[in-house]
């Protein structure tokens, strides 16, 4: 099992993007997916950084793929998607419509925003050319086990959402703009003010969700720290780490250490590296995604508890 860094969900400045990927080039991860997958309006502000980031990551020995948007509706967005295919790098499809631009049989990756819930779908995508699939974050371990098996049979590497706030929803409407009483088309890029998204709490003050433009994420940081053994036994090929502000390279190193056999220390290391975060792992445990359960063995779904 190795590590894959997914595309950054948040809107960072070009300088912040450049620094992030420069540092990441030294991190112990096997591959990196880069690109704007949340909002096409953000891309002009940082797309000039992509070519340089790809170079520095490849120089660092990483495999690099480009991500499509997660929700493609506009003509401009469809053209952008078609253009991605011409870049000569693997493309990670995060909206199925991007497949229309992939020649039949040409290899591609599938991201967590495409609904791969069962063997039938995995096998169809494999026949179409998929070589790597990151499963949707809400899948329980039993499904992951079956899909990892189907993936081995179909020569598809199966990846699981390993670390980071889980993407829960995407909309035609921008909730960041709505919070500022603006429509999406006149958002003035307010999502750029919140490098880790904007907190949404319940009325009684419980941390709940995170708004990130048109995307909604969990508030708790998903981590499979307590489930690494079960995922390894299931034959999962890679864990996906989702970029966030803060000590991301240290987080990647902590997961790498865990994959090399000392996983017991991982939860405590994460708690130290992200002192303000709460953590959750309920999806893999077949419970509420926001729940945190203790260690999980293969095929066993422990009782959940809310934190």
């Amino acid at each position: 099992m190795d590590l894959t860094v997914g595309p950054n969900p948040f809107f960072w400045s070009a300088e912040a993007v450049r620094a992030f990927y420069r540092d990441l080039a030294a991190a112990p991860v096997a591959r990196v997916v880069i690109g704007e997958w949340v909002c096409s309006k953000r891309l002009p502000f940082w797309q000039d950084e992509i070519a340089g980031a790809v170079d520095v990551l490849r120089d660092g020995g990483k495999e690099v793929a480009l991500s499509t948007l997660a929700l493609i509706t506009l003509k401009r967005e469809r053209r952008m998607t078609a253009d991605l295919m011409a870049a000569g790098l693997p493309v990670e499809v995060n909206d199925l419509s991007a497949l229309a631009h992939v020649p039949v049989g040409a290899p591609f990756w599938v991201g967590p925003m495409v609904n791969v819930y069962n063997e039938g779908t995995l096998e169809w995508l494999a026949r179409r050319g998929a070589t790597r699939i990151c499963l949707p974050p809400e899948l329980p371990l039993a499904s992951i086990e079956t899909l990892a098996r189907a993936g081995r049979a179909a020569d598809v590497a199966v990846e699981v959402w390993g670390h980071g706030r889980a993407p829960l929803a995407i909309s035609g409407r921008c909730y960041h703009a709505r919070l500022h009483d603006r429509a999406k088309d006149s958002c003035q890029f307010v999502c750029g003010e919140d490098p880790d998204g904007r907190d949404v709490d319940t009325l009684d003050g419980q941390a709940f969700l995170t708004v990130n433009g048109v995307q909604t994420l969990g508030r708790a940081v998903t981590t499979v720290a307590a489930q690494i053994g079960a995922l390894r036994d299931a034959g999962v090929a890679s864990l996906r780490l989702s970029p966030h502000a803060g000590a991301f390279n240290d987080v990647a190193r902590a997961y790498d250490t865990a994959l090399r056999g000392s996983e017991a220390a991982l939860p405590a290391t994460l708690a130290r590296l992200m002192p303000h975060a709460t953590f959750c792992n309920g999806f893999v445990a077949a419970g509420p995604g926001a729940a945190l359960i203790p260690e999980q063995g293969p095929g066993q779904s422990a009782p959940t508890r809310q934190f």
Partner: protein
Amino acid sequence: MMELVCPAGTPAALRAAVEAGAHTVYCGFADETNARNFPGLNFSREEMAAGIDFAHDRGAKVLVAINTFPRAGAQDLWHRAVADAAAAGADAVILADIGLLAHAAERHPGLRLHLSVQAAAANPDAINLYAQAFGVRRVVLPRVLTVEEIAAINRETEVETEVFVFGGLCVMAEGRCSLSSYATGLSPNMNGVCSPASHVAYAETAKGQEARLGGFLIHRTARGAPVPYPTLCKGCFTSGDQTGHIFEDPVSLDATRLIPALRKAGVSALKIEGRQRSRAYVTQVVRAFRAAVEAAERGDPMPEGLLTRLTEGQAATTGAYAKTWR
């Protein structure tokens, strides 16, 4: 005339819809294969066959929604649902999952396939992909598009388009939302439920009446005021110094007045949400919309505000169809 596609959660609602003027009724089997897997709802195999006969005798069609995403290792349940719908004489099945579409196209080549809104095919590339790969004949468009975008889609595809005009409003792209499972462990995609009643708790507290979903407080209202159902995306939350309906107010979709524009945009069918609603709802909404599509056909103005009482929050929106919603 634009085809009116109406919901039925029970055999009684199916009969009510047909009698009120539905051209087409959609419904599902009583299990996790359909996206309205609610307590006390839906059709046994026998009820489905009888319902289809009833509708066909009166010139109406029946579409069977098998629109959740099959569980890994348990695809048989979904495959059987498609076979049983075909055997019962369904006019089409409404599917969302790629694997299930591939199965249906291969095993039931004579069966008409509609693409569920749960597939969230939001542009012509996606729609044409489903048509080429599986022979999909109609797509139910996700509720993230404006009327102009719908018109543009129709210019680029031969696939019929169906759009929601009334009822509960998903504010997120359908079929791509895990908010419910984040709070409760049960999701529309896997279990056919959103914000399930089994995880809802109401309580009277010193601060007012509270509605919780999976333990998370979704609404709090003054004593005596109606407590909305705690659908997660219509909840009241706090972000920074703001408190309110961060995602959407508790309103429903009513696009009656956009029917002429949707017709002009090339939309083939209008869909009414609400398989979880009563036969009283079905009768009133279907009758009003049958009158509206007939009026649109004649070029008459659209009736307005007839159905406010039936909408959540007693308020309606035209949702994403108007660009200002965004």
